[in-house]
């Protein structure tokens, strides 16, 4: 049991939990059992069926209800006298500002996405409240401690960018199933059911410029004289047949590649379905999420591999059902892994395309995992991580800085350890979040618009949600509820101007100040004009640099009992249970760093560097805590970097 000092620290503490999901349920339970009496918990999510295998505070009957609220009620059943304050809200909402954060002694994160983690990190830095951060994927997990001025902040180390694919791989030359999924989800699904006004490469690339004129009318619009069956077949023939034939005309492309095979409905399906369609689609139960093409086709097991014919039937059926049952949503649909019909459509479309390109087909279960970027999750890892979070939280409350540890939960033992504690590091002096290091942005100031800068840099890269952009004293852009109408119009106009033509022109040498008032984060960006960018390597058309995210662990001398050190690389991702926001991420061989075995008694490991790590704390280089009796030290080594990290003393 906890000591007297621990108990008094626990009892007097007011803690904020962010996230009531996989880690959150376990954490709330362990906090309550450990004696915490004042817990606030924020979670915007509602309960889903796929949560029930691990989020044990929830039952089938709670599906659809607020996680934060149900979790509170469940815990009060065994600890009725403690205070739990739930917020069914987004942690990025303005009500959770610096003043709100200041009331807590410690913040505990059990989040599922990078964006929210960065936001909480900034609020913790701004309010001076310590943060215990955590994440799990499958059997892997980690807990880290971030205390302003004492340890590094969550953003002192770079987070690997989500994997993106060259546009032409997706539109013209897929070689892997994931390419087909991205095509089906981000191009075809978006084109048919999403916002029509959004740019979409579906047709641009797949029909080359010379032939595009004959398709000046939008082939994806349903014609007045078409029924859904005809429409579906025409779309099918266009994207899987015609477009492939057009692509094949470009001999150059296929010199060193396998040629795809155009697929037309007439080759796969009977010419015209005989009476099977008519009015057979009964009005459904009213819940649009229960509409399913596979169910109505008698396909039951999501693990089964469908044939090309079955995929084609699912494709046509799903498309038809979207128009019949969910017409109101068309034009504003985004892909959602919990939307059965959307998953069916994307699975079938990806499979038909895969068949055309000679890529192995996949089951709906597998396709859903890839398309929805679903991260593996089990109860045990979350329970372990929650226990570790509470241990760190107690140390933080006692201000026991020397005992702070980052702990990795491993799938395979390293140096006999399944749970590996590591001393935290000092803040990265060149971190733009917790220090004031200016950044540099290379950009074509004559071509890029302010909108590009706001979307691709300020929001995507810097993670700001309510930005304010200044050039000297001139305000170029700001968002907020309290703006005057003319200001709003002014800023909207600015968004569409190229940088060099703004009222206060931004050119090479300009220093911009970007600020997020909610996060209380401010940074300067030196603008450097550059004419050309590599379309494939630098698709944003701009390059942000300036803070040195990677870090190298310092070499540690072994003691005099004989040199014996081993290198181990450990990649442990932070949790991202159900992250829809970020692009599909696959393995990047560059971040696979193999350990070297030096001595038979030492174990070196390279754990899967991949693990669909959406928020991926990929390579972390840490010195494993040294036991007094141990002479060998595990160094975790990754990308080399001249920076040295000092441990917290």
């Amino acid at each position, binding site marked *: *049991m*906890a000591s007297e000092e621990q108990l008094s620290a626990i009892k007097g503490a007011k803690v904020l939990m962010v996230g009531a999901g996989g880690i959150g349920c*376990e954490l709330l339970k*362990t906090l*309550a*059992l*450990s004696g915490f009496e004042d817990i606030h918990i924020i979670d915007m999510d509602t309960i889903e069926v*796929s949560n*029930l*295998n*691990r989020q*044990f505070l929830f039952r089938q009957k709670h599906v659809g209800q607020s996680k934060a609220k149900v979790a509170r009620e469940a815990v009060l*059943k*065994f*600890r*009725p006298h403690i205070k739990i304050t739930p917020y069914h809200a987004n942690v990025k909402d303005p009500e959770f500002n610096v003043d709100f954060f200041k009331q807590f002694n410690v913040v505990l994160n059990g989040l599922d996405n990078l964006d929210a983690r960065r936001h909480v990190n900034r609020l913790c830095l701004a309010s001076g409240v310590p943060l215990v951060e955590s994440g799990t994927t*499958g*059997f892997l997990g980690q807990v880290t401690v971030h205390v302003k001025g004492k340890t590094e902040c969550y953003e002192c180390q770079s987070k690997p960018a989500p994997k993106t694919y060259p546009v032409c791989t997706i539109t013209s030359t897929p070689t892997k199933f994931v390419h087909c999924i991205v095509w089906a989800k981000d191009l075809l699904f978006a084109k048919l059911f999403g916002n029509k006004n959004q740019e979409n490469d579906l047709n641009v690339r797949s029909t080359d410029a010379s032939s595009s004129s004959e398709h000046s009318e939008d082939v994806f619009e349903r014609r007045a004289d078409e029924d859904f069956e005809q429409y579906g077949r025409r779309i099918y023939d266009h994207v899987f047949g015609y477009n492939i034939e057009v692509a094949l005309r470009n001999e150059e492309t296929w010199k060193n590649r396998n040629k795809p095979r155009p697929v037309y409905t007439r080759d796969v399906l009977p010419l015209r379905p005989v009476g099977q369609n008519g009015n057979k689609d009964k009005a459904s139960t009213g819940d649009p999420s229960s509409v399913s093409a596979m169910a109505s086709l008698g396909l*039951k*097991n999501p*693990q089964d591999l469908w044939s090309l014919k079955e995929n084609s039937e699912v494709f046509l059926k799903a498309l038809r059902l979207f128009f019949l049952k969910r017409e109101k949503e068309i034009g504003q649909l985004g892909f959602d892994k919990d939307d059965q019909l959307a998953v069916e459509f994307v699975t079938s479309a990806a499979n038909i395309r895969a068949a055309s390109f000679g890529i192995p087909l996949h089951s709906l*279960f597998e396709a859903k*995992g890839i398309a929805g970027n*679903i991260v*593996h*999750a*089990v*109860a*045990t*890892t979350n*329970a*372990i991580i*929650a*226990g*570790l979070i*509470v*241990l760190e939280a*107690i140390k933080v409350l006692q201000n026991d800085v020397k005992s702070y540890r980052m702990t990795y*939960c491993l799938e*395979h*033992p390293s140096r*006999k*350890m*399944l*749970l*590996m*504690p590591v001393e935290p590091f000092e803040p990265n002096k060149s971190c733009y979040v917790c220090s004031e290091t200016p950044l540099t942005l290379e950009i074509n100031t004559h071509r890029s618009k302010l909108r590009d800068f706001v979307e691709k840099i300020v929001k995507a890269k810097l993670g700001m949600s309510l930005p304010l952009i200044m050039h000297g004293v001139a305000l170029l852009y700001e968002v907020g509820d309290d703006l005057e109408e003319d200001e709003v119009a002014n800023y909207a106009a600015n968004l569409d101007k190229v940088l060099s033509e703004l009222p206060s022109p931004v050119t090479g040498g300009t220093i911009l100040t970007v600020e997020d008032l909610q996060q209380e984060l401010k940074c300067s960006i030196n603008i450097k004009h550059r004419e050309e960018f590599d379309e494939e390597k630098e698709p944003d058309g701009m390059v942000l640099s300036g803070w040195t995210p990677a870090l190298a662990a310092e070499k540690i001398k072994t003691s005099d009992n004989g040199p014996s050190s081993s290198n181990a690389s450990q990649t442990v991702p932070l949790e991202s249970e159900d992250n829809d926001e970020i692009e599909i991420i696959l*393995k990047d061989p560059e971040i*696979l760093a193999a*350990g070297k*075995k030096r001595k038979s008694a030492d*174990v070196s490991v*390279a*754990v*899967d560097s*991949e*693990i669909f790590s959406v928020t991926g704390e990929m390579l972390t280089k840490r010195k494993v*805590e040294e*036991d007094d*009796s141990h002479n060998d030290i595990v160094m975790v080594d990754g990308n080399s970097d001249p920076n040295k990290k000092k441990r917290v003393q």
Partner: protein
Amino acid sequence: MSATVNPKQDYDENIEEEEEIANHVITRCQILIPMFVRLQMGTEGEQLTEQETAIYDRQIRVWGVDAQRRLSKSNVFVSGLKGTSVEFCKNIVLAGVGSLTLNDDRLVTEDLLFANFLTPPDENDFRGKSVAELCCDSLKDFNPMVSVSVEKGALSIFDADFFQKFDVVVVNCCSLLTKKSVNAKCRKLPKRVAFYSVECRDSCGEIFVDLQNFSYCKKKNEETIECKLHYPSFEEAIAVPWRSLPKRMSKLYYAMRVIERFEELEGRNPGETSVDDLPNVQKLRKELCEAHCLNESHIPDSLLRRLMASTSEFPPVCAIVGGILGQEVIKAISGKGDPLKNFFFFDAMDGKGIIEDISNVNS
């Protein structure tokens, strides 16, 4: 004989990992051509229900459909319901084992409720009920697809036939004598019954694992490798002379043996110690260390004091050790992943979770 293997999770052919497993983890390993040796409970071909697929979606992505199917056919017995074993029960009920049988006849008291999240707050709900009955009701609610039941009676009187019904037996907070005898009964059976004991004191925890002869498959590159592990019984393991153990053996191992032996000699129930016993325990430590030719510094006073001073468990440690135990049982049932051999130690003071292999080298 020892060998090094590269394990590879076969649920995802994209994962490439290179890992050297320390010699002590794998006893013997051989390359098989396409033959699969599975656990007895493995039944291929049956399909999961739609409900199972929906609820277990995220974990099927971790261990695959086959493993899920084997889990749902497995029968688990747990005796001694304290913080750690209750955490364990929660974990495997959520994971979806076939059945869970609980054994703990103690009547519910306020104290017993303290480290337990399975018990309802209403006093009237627990009056007159045994701990097992109370936990049973809560656990059923966690996952209606798992059959949870109670078996009354003292653990020590169950005969070998009784354990035959199970694939996994877990004992928590169990005396040395009973631990040895239950373990021995499990080993006598014609089928393999995996035996686990788990103990948490203060901020420390220990897990012991006996899978007898255990084979499991893993894929390395394109080959399927069958790995065989040979486990000693608890009695055999703790009989291994201390001087033959590695110099850097976890101190917790020795300390737990001293206290366990002390309780046995004094006729105490597990955990029935206090700091007042320290002088006698120190005396016993001296005797044991001399007998084993081990320096007493391997069992520091500070550690002994912590283990004896507090009989109640520390909830975060229960969650951690119960989580590791859950993971290990799932590995053993599913035949996926390297199971730990044969001790696990966690100490919140240094935060390490360590595996130690303590088996007789000659056997």
